[in-house]
């Protein structure tokens, strides 16, 4: 995965890079088998559900996350992310509101991660702080 210290910013950026590159094997390697994943659009359990969800999402959206604030330890990580969504297809039932192909949405989210003793994420929870761009 990476030799960076678990819970460090450098270690966490490996996870985000994998996510931004649609590297499903890479980012799901950070998940515990019983990971709980709570985002605005879905509540998921287990790496398979997360991968299934993001396979569907990335078919419709180019998603990029940029790390702003980071505070981490071996057991918890708290981050501020700017999430940019570029819609490749219409998504009429997108959770925050219907979107059309070509729309852009940009939001700031605070995301808190719980880690187990192996340094794997057991819980991921995201809260929206602000929407920068709606369309």
């Amino acid at each position, binding site marked *: 995965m990476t030799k960076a210290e678990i819970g460090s910013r450098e270690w966490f950026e490996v996870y985000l890079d994998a996510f931004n590159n649609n590297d499903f094997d890479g980012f799901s390697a950070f998940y515990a088998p019983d990971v709980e994943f*709570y985002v605005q659009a879905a509540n998921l359990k287990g790496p398979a559900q997360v991968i299934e969800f993001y396979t569907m999402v990335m078919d419709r959206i180019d998603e990029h996350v940029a790390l702003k*604030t980071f*505070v*981490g*330890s071996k057991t*918890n990580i*708290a981050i*501020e992310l700017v999430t940019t969504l570029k819609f490749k297809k219409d998504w009429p039932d997108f959770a925050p509101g219907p979107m059309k192909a070509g729309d852009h949405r940009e939001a700031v*989210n*605070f*995301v*808190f991660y719980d880690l187990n003793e192996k340094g794997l994420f057991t819980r991921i*929870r*995201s*809260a*929206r*702080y*602000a929407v920068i761009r709606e369309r």
Partner: protein
Amino acid sequence: MSEEARFAEYIDTFNNRNYEKLVTYYSPEIRLVNGTGRELAGRDAIVDFYKKVNAFASRKIAICSSMSDGETLAAELKSTFTAMANAPDFPSGPMAKGDRLYINSFVFYEIAGGVYVKIRAAIFERRWMRAADEEQ
């Protein structure tokens, strides 16, 4: 004292409504954005806002977790508001006497010179417990 220990003292001060002590945790240029997106600039604005909130509702904040790198403190908080009177203009929505509002939030505190300069909160979960429902 660690930032986490100082933060616990700050939350105690908040819960005890000790406004005179509360402002000592803030920079004069403090900016606070609460979970509803409302921005309060300056110590007086924060105290004025929470005095109004506390006139209608008792609020207790519990720290679920906190950690700091010395420049930023991240905290997960659980707040419970209980309306002591009808509060149609309560910032999170109208409350009737006895209603309770439970909020689970993620908050970042930026620290400089030993005081908080910027506080930003995002709500992860908001749950109403209505007095009328509980009576049934």
